Each structure stands twice: as structure tokens, then as C-alpha cells.
């Protein structure tokens, strides 16, 4: 492998919109660039994704855009996207490959790393130097500082740990890549995406989450009414999702979504280690629980020991 130092960032998008997490990942790339001096290239794999290319071209921190537009990439399945990335990486021009630690990035990046015979550094929260990074382990109960000896560093980035880069003012050129035919290993059948008027969990400024204490999915409208008064997103603990109260995409925690809003309100959530791992970096934490011994109070800035079924309507009213 050559000794190139360019930085390749995988854009996350749905063929029409660049996802916010990519802006945070680009900030990590900017920090790597400050150390290695490599140019930042954004790669967009999809089908008929011109709108995404336009948004990407406006990003002032992006030096160049690579576009792989093909029918086989319409749903960005990892078997096919990995092959595009490998073709790009093989020449040895790159020192770093970055993607967001979303389900998309987590699915794709280890496949690429293994094909390149390099390690992956998952969910970094800090760039120490061009080869050294900090990442949480044991559900965030410890932080590991790891140094890579591979020529190519494959990295996923925890979005909440990096600010978003500016979205306008740039004029990067876009280069179209040759794409190979589909691998034929996998095919897309369909998806069920939750549709909500509320902000997305991972980018919301305020989140209100419900746990087992909500008792049933039928009680979540109490939470939603408060959320709508504050312009908040609605989340849930694993217990609430496992019990079938709400769908999996609302889960906050070690294996669900990692969030760090300005305000996180935990309602009827006891505070298992796995839940705390997903929200303890929030700026202000409020816990509402009738069990005053609940571990959630140990991380809360403001705790209210009370019955949530009385508190939620009152809170909705108080927020006018």
C-alpha cells in the first residue's frame, strides 16, 4: 500500500438528502486533516443522487467529491458499496477512511476494513493525532486511547462527540466514478421507516424518553404532548422497546441510539448501565421517577420523585 494521506469520508444519504451525521463526521475529518495534511474527499454512493451531490458541493470543508451512481447502489447495500470503496482505496492514496457510526456506517465499514486487511477503530469520540484516537468501551464506562499501526485507518465516528461543519460556502468539484456490476449477494426487499413530525433523535436539542414506567404504548401520547410543547424528540429505554410499547428506532442506549441533547428528560426510566451509555453526555438531564432509589437520579441534574402519570399532564400545562 502506498503512503497517501488523503482522507475519504463516506456520505450518508437517502439519494435525496445528505444526513446530518455526515456533517459531524466531516468535523472529525477536519481534525485529522489538521494532523496529516491530507485532502478531504467525500464519496457518495447511490442512485440518482444529484441533490446530495449539490448539497455536498456546498460544504466548504470538502476538497473533492467522488460520485458512484448506479442501479446496484440504489439501496446502498454493504456488499456492493464496499466494492466501490475498495476500488477507490486500492491505489493507496488514502490514509484515512471515515464514516458515521450510524447503523449504515456500522454495517459497511468493517466489511471494507477486512477487505483492505486493516483494523477498524469504532465510534471515536476524539482525534488525538493522525493515528491515535479515543473511543468508549464497556458501554462508555471507560475510555480507551488507541493507536493504529495500519497504513489505512478505517474509522467510525460518534456524531455527538463532534460539532457539525458549515453547510454553505464551498464549491468542491464532483468526479464521477466507474462502477462495477452488482455483486448479486444481496437484494433489497423493503423497509418500514417511522414517519414523525418531531425532530430526529440524534440531532434533537431536547429529548423526552419513556421507560418501563410508562406501562404501555397507549400512554406514550402523554409524553408526546409534552414533547410537542418543547419541540422535542421522543425516545425510549430498551425495556420499553422490548415490552413492545414503541418501535426499535426510538431506543436510546448502548446498542440503540447515542444522543447528547441540551436537555434529556427521562420519564419512568430506572437507569440501567446500557441506557446511561446512550444519554449520559447530555448537557442537562432530568429524571422523573417514583422510585427515589432509581440509579437514573445519580446522573440527573434535576430529579423529581413523583408519579409520572400526574407529572406529565402537569408539565404539559406548565409549558403552556
Amino acid at each position: 500500500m502506498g503512503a497517501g494521506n488523503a482522507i475519504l469520508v463516506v456520505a450518508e444519504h437517502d439519494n435525496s438528502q445528505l444526513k446530518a451525521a455526515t456533517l459531524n463526521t466531516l468535523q472529525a475529518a477536519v481534525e485529522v486533516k489538521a494532523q496529516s495534511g491530507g485532502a478531504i474527499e467525500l464519496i457518495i454512493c447511490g442512485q440518482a443522487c444529484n441533490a446530495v451531490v449539490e448539497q455536498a458541493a456546498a460544504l466548504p470543508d470538502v476538497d473533492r467529491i467522488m460520485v458512484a451512481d448506479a442501479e446496484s447502489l440504489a439501496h446502498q447495500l454493504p456488499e456492493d458499496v464496499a466494492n466501490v470503496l475498495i476500488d477507490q482505496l486500492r491505489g493507496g492514496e488514502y490514509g484515512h477512511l471515515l464514516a458515521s457510526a450510524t447503523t449504515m456506517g456500522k454495517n459497511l465499514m468493517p466489511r471494507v476494513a477486512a477487505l483492505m486487511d486493516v483494523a477498524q477503530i469504532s465510534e471515536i469520540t476524539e482525534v488525538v493525532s493522525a493515528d491515535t484516537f479515543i473511543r468508549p468501551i464497556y458501554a462508555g464506562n471507560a475510555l480507551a486511547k488507541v493507536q493504529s499501526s495500519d497504513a489505512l485507518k478505517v474509522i467510525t465516528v460518534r456524531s455527538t462527540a463532534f460539532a457539525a461543519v458549515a453547510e454553505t460556502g464551498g464549491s468542491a468539484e464532483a468526479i464521477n466514478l466507474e462502477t462495477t456490476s452488482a455483486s448479486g449477494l444481496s437484494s433489497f426487499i423493503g423497509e418500514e421507516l417511522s414517519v414523525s413530525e418531531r425532530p430526529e433523535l440524534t440531532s434533537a436539542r431536547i429529548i423526552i424518553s419513556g421507560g418501563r414506567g410508562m406501562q404501555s404504548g397507549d400512554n406514550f401520547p402523554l409524553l408526546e404532548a409534552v414533547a410537542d410543547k418543547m419541540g422535542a424528540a421522543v425516545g425510549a429505554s430498551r425495556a420499553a422497546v422490548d415490552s413492545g410499547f414503541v418501535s426499535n428506532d426510538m431506543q436510546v442506549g448502548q446498542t440503540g441510539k447515542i444522543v447528547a441533547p441540551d436537555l434529556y428528560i427521562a420519564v419512568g426510566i430506572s437507569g440501567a448501565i446500557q441506557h446511561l451509555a446512550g444519554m449520559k453526555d447530555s448537557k442537562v438531564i432530568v429524571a422523573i421517577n417514583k422510585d427515589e432509589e432509581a440509579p437514573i437520579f445519580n446522573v440527573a441534574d434535576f430529579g423529581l420523585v413523583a408519579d409520572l402519570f400526574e407529572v406529565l399532564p402537569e408539565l404539559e400545562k406548565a409549558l403552556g
Partner: protein
Amino acid sequence: MKVLVAIKRVVDANVKVRVKADNSAVELANIKMAINPFCEIAIEEAIRLKEKGHASEVLVVSIGPDTCQEQLRTALALGADRALQIKTDESPEPLAVAKLLKAVVDQEQPGMVILGKQSIDGDNNQTGQMLAALTGMPQGTFASEVAIEGDALQVTREIDGGLQKVSLKLPAVVTTDLRLNEPRYASLPNIMKAKRKPLETQTPEDLGIDISPRLTVLEVTNPPERAAGIKVGSVSELVEKLKNDAGVL
């Protein structure tokens, strides 16, 4: 079809770990260990495939020192047919684990490999995807439902926006998410029976795999502590504090 399940011995999910005083690692001495929760789900899924007649044999493999035989015996008690320990001094990195598992896949030719999506110690979430890459198999990660349809596997995946359904050509790699199934407990008679089931040991040298690490852990530290908060007495007090003291409303 033979199903291969890879499992890892990790700190029990209910233990709150501590960082060693010399910041070299997390303290693991005298701590309760268990099968990684996602790996338990992988074992359960393989056993259910066998019970439904899709799988003819369930082979469980773990990589580590002899202590991981305890977890392999548990898997045998749960219903796996035979076990393989790949003996190493420490826990290798995900890339090395994937290479070792690839060597096992080459030997055993399974129709499906099921792994947990991540282990709750390293939280890497890499091994299944890496194994799929090295074996040239498709990958159904973060699975909440799997169904065999002829020579293809339909996998429902938990993704950030909801659920995605894909069809994979077999053989394939599946990694489990929390809601794939609810693992059973081992019964006492099955625990006794498991002691007589075959457990073989191999080494990375036997398999011809280099497991030298690519990453160096320079330091392990405690995350910043949150300052202790206060209890408020009422909703109005809470709203007042959030507006005026914290300035977040």
C-alpha cells in the same frame, strides 16, 4: 445445513466495571463473566433453526483462554451439538477473530454463521461484517427476524430509521440484535448431558492464522464524572430551574 455460532466470554452485563489504577485496562480479576448477551441470542436462533428442521447441526466456537470453555459448555447445554475452542492467551482484535473464524468456515462449510452484533466489552460491532467480507458471504446485520426461503435468507434488520428487509444468498452471515428472540435457560439434565458433548481445541497456529494486533491501547481512563444534581419538589419548580438556572427551555 450446518450452522456455526461464534460466542464470546465477557464481563456480565450487570457488572459496573472499574478502570485499573495504572490506567492500563479495565479490572477483570474476580469479576463475574458470562456469555455476551448478543451471543446468547445467536445460540438461541441457531437452536431454533435446528428445532424447525432447517439446521442439521449447531457448532459453537469461542476464542480465548481455557476459561471460555465454561461458556462453550453453557452453549452445549442450551442445545449446540459440538464446540470448538480456539486457544489464545488474550482476546484477539476483531480482524484476527474474523480470520480465525474464516479458517473454521473453510474447514466446516456451514450454510449460515450467526454472531452477536457486538460484544458488550469492546463495543466494536465489527466481527460479523469482517467475517462476511473475508468469506465473500452477504451479511444480515442487526437482525430482528430471519426466515429461510429456499436457498435465500430473508433478514429483517434494525436500522436507524426503522426496519429494513433484505434477501441474502446462502451461505450468509447474520448478526443478532436484541429483539431477534428471547434466549432460553439451560435445564439441569441438559447441563449434565453437555459435559459429554464433544469440545475440541485448536490453536491459531493449527489454523495458520496470524493474530498479531494492529492497534495498541495506550491508556484506559474513567469518563468524566457528572456533578451531583438536586431533587426538585414540584413540576413548577422543575420548569423554573430549567428556564432560569439551566437555560435550556
